[in-house]
């Protein structure tokens, strides 16, 4: 049990430091123009990676499973400009339905 608390403590502390680093060292000052160009593309790059790995990844394996129905449903809901909650619920419902049927 003590090893669990060790992990909780060390990871908690490490995460606080990682999160604080940028705003503490650079906070309130505008970035140089070159850096701004890079930073504005950071969100799409990381979010694209998160979508891909959450939809297709399973640990170190890549799998095609019922989550893809959910992602398709989310895509359709977004196309119709549905609110975010509807998009997420539609994805879960489509995946659950596909699992129940298949």
């Amino acid at each position: 049990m003590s090893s669990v608390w060790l992990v909780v403590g060390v990871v908690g502390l490490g995460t606080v430091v990682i999160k604080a680093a940028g705003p503490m060292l650079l906070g309130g000052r505008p970035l140089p123009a070159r850096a701004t160009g890079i930073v504005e593309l950071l969100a799409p790059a990381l979010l694209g990676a998160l979508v891909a790995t959450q939809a297709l990844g399973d640990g170190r394996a890549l799998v095609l499973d019922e989550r893809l129905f959910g992602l398709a449903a989310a895509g359709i809901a977004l196309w119709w400009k549905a609110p975010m909650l509807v998009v997420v619920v539609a994805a879960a419902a489509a995946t659950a339905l596909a699992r129940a049927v298949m």
Partner: protein
Amino acid sequence: MMSATTFAGSAQFAAASILGDGGRVAAAVAAALLLNARYAPIGVSLAPWLDGPRWRRFLHAQLVVDESWAISARGEGRYDPRILVGAGLLLYVAWVAGTAVGAIGGQALGDPATLGLDAAFPALFLALLAPQVRRRKPLFVALLGGTIALALTPFTPPGVPIIAASVACLLGVRR
């Protein structure tokens, strides 16, 4: 308890699953910190928008998670700190409360996959991504980031593919 001290879901899941599989403490810590390393570049992107005294910047930085960061994005590298802090606080309360409910009532729910809850995460990130990729360059970078992450997934520990995908924004700038 971990929800209160490490406000970042994927790192918690990773550490818990490694320990649950009988993994070593060092492996669990390394995986969790690798997953959270993405908050270093995210913190840099937010830095110009978080001002005020050091203690306030420090506290605001702790409210950054993928969701609060993405929802505060105003496009073209601009961020709204008020939305970041508001969403972050709301998410933090919901996250800790939800974890407590899960710890007490988790058995009653059964397998979350039956409810399709694992598909909620990619859908959420897709919804956060959609408003950011109306122009060609960010769309290209998002696709490239996804491709890099998938290509590395089989060969690297969890977390590394996400961090490596941030290289996509360097390639996007050159293009």
